């Protein structure tokens, strides 16, 4: 096929740059500057799609982003993108596209049988047909609907394209670079405002590129280019083409999608699209207006198009949309199409104007019929003739329809703005409350003539510059003809048969009347019941038509009927764009400890804890599974010495004259009298008395403490401390700063920990007297490196934690391992840590689970009643300190070969498995290599009085029911002699 509908002269495509492309496997040629739609039309391709519901043959309807019909599957393989509007897909060499939503070839769609079934597929058919029986929904109806009413198809593979996001700031954002937007940009930018001019098209000018207007004595597109060049030369202006402003949000924030490489064959590894968040002081919506159709029988055939689009194809792309074009209009702009087509040499068959008045022009060889409309059309896969209301039949292969223009009010609605009706233009204009800082110019505001658009933009640009404290220049708006276009509303042709309102959703005049008859009186209900105005085009060409028909059916005016409003996005946004670069491993940042690299080289397997990667165990060659590694690590630590990276625990530096008083308020236990050089375990409650977090806090100097928090709560605890500091104790002299990342901290645990550290730590009396349990000190290690030493134990062993400035961390783990060689020092991970803390009965998140009190945890004595602390008052409430609450216990299986499961519930032996008989639950379990069997922690009602009792751990999920013995939670070294030794 050749480019045989290309007009000889007109258009802005670059005829020196032919581009090869293919549609449904057919090779064709277009030019640089074409869209896929214009290139298809130039090649005479009319049938490009099948409709959503009835699988009716459909063609290209518009020349812009409002396109309801011509959606194609673009590109191939993993790069394929469904539902691309051919009208905005810029042509590039090698482009491949296929039609979608049909079975079998496009010209013989097997699903077209739906068209014959249309009596059963009318308004609300989803709700009516697929309601019953319920069980059919998931297995039968949904798969059928999904495959039949599908649009395009995803590749099913990961999207190979990259996406990005970004942030922009400006005084003034202008959405749309047509005459109004350009004019506003010029006046505001000349006054010195920082302007972002965003245009969804690849070129500046908007409708000016589609018309044959004159501005300031020049052809309008020349003016647009001059304006662009002036703006581009200003440092305070950023022109963004291929950028659609898709949403207006709170406080002047807008979102916009910039299509960086969609017009190129390949993205070359760069982001394909960028989602911008634009912070604005003011914004102008200059999005123009969208033409709408007229409803009449069979008005959906390929070849029936909007008149302004037919004009655009001729003027901008140099394409004739047919061999014999007819025009149906209810307003003057339809005659612009006639004039331009004739000028471009397109054969014009007829002009049908619904208004009963004198013709605006006459054209040789063109029939002009006033006061009539189109009653029906013919042509199986493309239009061949139209039948008029006066009975006349006209042979024509393209019908250009203009039902008037609807201002693009979308962005004005995103913050509850409600458009109002204007009779003189038969359209809705922005109304109600616009988003903060937003104004509207040009056609989007109902200024439909070129002169009015230029003027309104110019004035608004100046006015907003002034509001921003700038001084507007004395420039004038560019001069252009200001002929008002007259319209006489005409919505649909009455009669039998289906007349389409919403082409994308296959909603007809009959559907609207039917839904009205069934009681759907609100436009919002109409929309949802008929699906009118949904899907990718959001009813840009159909909404007003639908409302008008509904108004007529209810006998109300359009303003009385009202309108639905719009939500973001203005045009469809790909999920990949919304995700940006945050996918896969880039979804969230990763935090690494300084021993990470060493660990990775020494068999570490890592687990995510928040954003941290922590070693869970260090596998050795020959170990069959993780349990082997963990058991070995526990035994080695208890027998000799183990080393664990505990850097991830939150560390907060707390200094100030009131630091101790501050800690005394945030911890439930007393902190005023902690001696310098000592560590104290602290328990934090929420204000409601429930336990929140715990950790150790060291007093390094009179006014200097270092708090540790759990890894998971580090950020939350810091936030809460700042709240207490600033909001509750504003007059305390206390200062906080996180030092979590500043120190690499290692637990060195086991009987040989003292001997090992004696080789590392400089000049410290490591004896039990010199550095007793819960001691801390600023020290140096390895001959002078500053360090902190704490004698604390999570494992129950004689243990220390030693911290060095983080950049020494990698070196430190190596030094510790080397110094520990003679003791067979063993690195251990979070699993061994967990086993040992369960053996010792230390609580973690499993037990501090947001529902447990200090009493539940066996730490009731840690809530001081002699002082104020967060949570201490409400912790006194009766139900929280009742005797019969659950208490922390240890458990072990009666049959030592049995495995325990966390989440199992406790029941008395012989009791029925009912909630009434519930005695508590298992929180943590582990295989204890120390004891040689499984152990666990859990909560049992009055559990502290029941050590030695046998109860059942019943697990309905895993179908297990085993007997366990209640023991003290402190299973390993209950007296604590070892850690103090």
């Amino acid at each position, binding site marked *: 096929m050749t480019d045989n509908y290309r007009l000889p002269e007109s258009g802005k495509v670059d005829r020196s740059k032919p581009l090869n492309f293919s549609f449904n496997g057919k090779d064709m040629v277009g030019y640089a500057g074409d869209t896929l739609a214009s290139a298809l039309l130039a090649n005479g391709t009319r049938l490009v799609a099948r409709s959503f519901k009835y699988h009716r043959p459909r063609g290209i309807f518009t020349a812009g982003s409002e396109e309801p019909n011509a959606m194609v599957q673009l590109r191939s393989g993993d790069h394929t993108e469904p539902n691309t509007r051919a009208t905005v897909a810029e042509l590039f060499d090698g482009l491949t596209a296929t039609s979608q939503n049909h079975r079998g070839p496009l010209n013989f769609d097997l699903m077209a049988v739906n068209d014959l079934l249309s009596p059963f597929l009318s308004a609300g058919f989803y709700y009516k047909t697929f309601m019953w029986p319920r069980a059919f929904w998931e297995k039968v109806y949904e798969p059928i609907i999904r495959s039949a009413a599908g649009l395009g198809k995803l590749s099913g593979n990961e999207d190979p394209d990259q996406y990005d*996001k970004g*942030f922009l700031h400006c005084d003034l954002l202008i959405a749309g670079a047509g005459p109004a937007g350009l004019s506003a940009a010029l006046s505001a930018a000349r006054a010195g405002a920082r302007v972002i001019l965003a245009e969804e098209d690849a070129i500046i000018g908007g409708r000016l590129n589609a018309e044959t207007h004159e501005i300031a004595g020049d052809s309008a597109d020349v003016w647009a280019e001059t304006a662009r060049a002036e703006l581009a030369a200003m440092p305070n202006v950023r022109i963004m083409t291929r950028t659609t402003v898709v949403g207006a949000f709170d406080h002047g924030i807008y979102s916009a999608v910039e299509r960086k490489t969609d017009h190129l064959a390949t993205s070359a590894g760069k982001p394909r699209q960028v989602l911008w968040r634009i912070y604005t002081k003011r914004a102008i919506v200059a999005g123009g207006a969208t033409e709408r159709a007229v409803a009449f029988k069979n008005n959906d055939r390929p070849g029936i198009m909007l008149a302004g689009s037919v004009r655009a194809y001729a003027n901008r792309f140099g394409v004739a949309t047919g061999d014999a074009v007819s025009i149906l209009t209810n307003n003057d702009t339809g005659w612009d199409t006639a004039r331009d087509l004739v000028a471009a040499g397109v054969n014009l068959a007829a002009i049908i104007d619904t208004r009963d008045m004198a013709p605006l022009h006459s054209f040789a060889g063109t029939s002009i019929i006033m006061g009539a409309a189109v009653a029906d059309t013919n042509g199986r896969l493309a239009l061949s003739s139209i039948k008029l209301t006066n009975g006349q039949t006209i042979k024509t292969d393209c019908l250009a329809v203009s039902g008037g223009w609807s201002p693009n009010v979308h962005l004005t609605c995103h913050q509850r703005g409600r458009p109002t009706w204007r009779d003189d233009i038969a359209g809705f204009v922005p109304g109600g409350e616009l988003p903060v800082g937003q104004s509207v110019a040009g056609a989007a505001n109902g200024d439909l003539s070129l002169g009015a658009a230029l003027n309104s933009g110019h004035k608004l640009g100046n006015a907003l510059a002034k509001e921003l404290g700038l001084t507007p220049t004395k420039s004038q708006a560019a001069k252009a003809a200001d002929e008002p276009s007259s319209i006489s509303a005409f919505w649909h042709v009455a009669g039998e048969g289906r007349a389409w309102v919403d082409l994308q959703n296959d909603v007809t005049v009959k559907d609207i009347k039917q839904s009205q008859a069934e009681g759907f009186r609100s436009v919002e209900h109409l929309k949802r019941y008929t699906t009118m105005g949904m899907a990718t085009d959001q009813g840009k060409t159909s909404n007003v038509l639908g409302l008008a028909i509904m108004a007529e059916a209810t006998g109300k005016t359009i303003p009385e009927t009202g309108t639905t409003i719009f939500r973001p996005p203005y045009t469809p946004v790909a999920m990949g764009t919304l995700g940006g670069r945050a996918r896969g491993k880039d979804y969230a940042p990763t935090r690494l400890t300084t021993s990470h690299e060493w660990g990775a080289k020494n068999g570490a397997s890592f687990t995510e804890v928040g954003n941290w990667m922590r070693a869970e165990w260090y596998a050795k060659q020959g170990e069959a599974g993780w349990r082997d590694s963990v058991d070995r690590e526990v035994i080695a630590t208890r027998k000799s010495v183990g080393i664990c990276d505990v850097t991830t625990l939150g560390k907060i530096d707390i200094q100030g004259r009131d630091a101790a008083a501050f800690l005394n308020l945030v911890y439930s236990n007393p902190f005023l009298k902690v001696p310098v050089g000592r560590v104290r375990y602290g328990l934090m409650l929420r204000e409601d008395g429930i336990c929140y977090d715990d950790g150790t806090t060291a007093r390094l100097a009179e006014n200097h403490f270092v708090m540790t928090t759990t890894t998971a709560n580090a950020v939350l605890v810091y936030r809460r401390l700042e709240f207490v500091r600033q909001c509750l104790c504003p007059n305390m002299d206390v200062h906080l700063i996180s030092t979590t990342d500043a120190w690499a901290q290692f637990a060195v645990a086991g009987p040989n920990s003292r001997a090992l550290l004696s*080789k590392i730590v400089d000049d410290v009396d490591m004896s039990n007297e010199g550095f007793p349990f819960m001691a801390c000190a600023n020290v140096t290690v390895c*001959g002078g490196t500053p360090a902190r030493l704490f004698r604390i134990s999570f494992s129950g062993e004689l243990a220390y934690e030693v911290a060095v400035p983080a950049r020494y961390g990698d*070196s430190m783990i190596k030094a510790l391992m080397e110094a520990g060689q003679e003791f067979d020092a063993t690195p251990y991970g979070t699993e061994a840590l967990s086993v040992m803390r369960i053996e010792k009965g230390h609580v973690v998140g499993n037990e501090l689970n947001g529902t447990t009190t200090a009493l539940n945890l066996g730490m009731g004595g840690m809530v001081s009643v002699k002082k104020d602390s967060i949570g201490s008052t409400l912790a006194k409430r009766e139900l929280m300190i009742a005797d019969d609450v659950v208490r922390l216990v240890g458990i072990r299986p009666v049959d030592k070969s049995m495995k325990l499961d966390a989440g199992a519930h406790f029941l008395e032996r012989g009791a029925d498995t009912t909630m009434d008989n519930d005695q508590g639950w298992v929180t943590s379990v582990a295989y204890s290599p120390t004891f040689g069997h499984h152990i666990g922690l859990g909560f049992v009602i009055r559990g502290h009085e029941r050590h030695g009792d046998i109860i059942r751990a019943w697990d309905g999920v895993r179908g297990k029911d085993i007997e366990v013995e209640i023991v003290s939670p402190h299973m390993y070294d209950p007296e604590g002699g070892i850690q103090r030794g």
Partner: protein
Amino acid sequence: MAKFDLQETPRLGGYTKEFGDSGMVLREITELVLTSLAMPMGGKTKLTAAVKDTFGLTLPTALKSKLSTDGQTRLVQTQPDQYFCLTSKPVPSAMASVAYVTDQTHGWVGLDISGPNVREALERICPVDLDPSAFPVHAAARTTMEHLGVLIIRVSKDQFCLLSASSSAESFLHAVELSIKNVI
């Protein structure tokens, strides 16, 4: 005694990269000593005097850092009563008598990003307005980039210093690197 010598390793191993012929350069700032100075309640006069004596600087206000004339010390207000001191050597210990001092050197990773596309690269991750009218040389702000807290300072027209938590240094470097790659 010093049998086990500890080596200091920059978090990113002293990373430095030039991006082709774009002129964009990204470099880990390894020589930086970072100290937090918290102002004791009622201690502004003393701290101001000490800062003047020690660095020849007045206390910075929010959003604007102060650089000493020898270029060796930069002070940034990080909280209403807290300042970060960026130096090449540890601050004199006497500062501890007028401020609560916390060494932050190891808690942060510093990246120096410079080149003609620096604004375009940073606007992919930085929500703060970096236009010279809003963020001139020496301007400083704490903000978030790719979920990470960042202290950003404009060093010169086309050069910024970015400080972020050291534990997530690799992720932060990746974010900045990717931003550069995406715009050159």
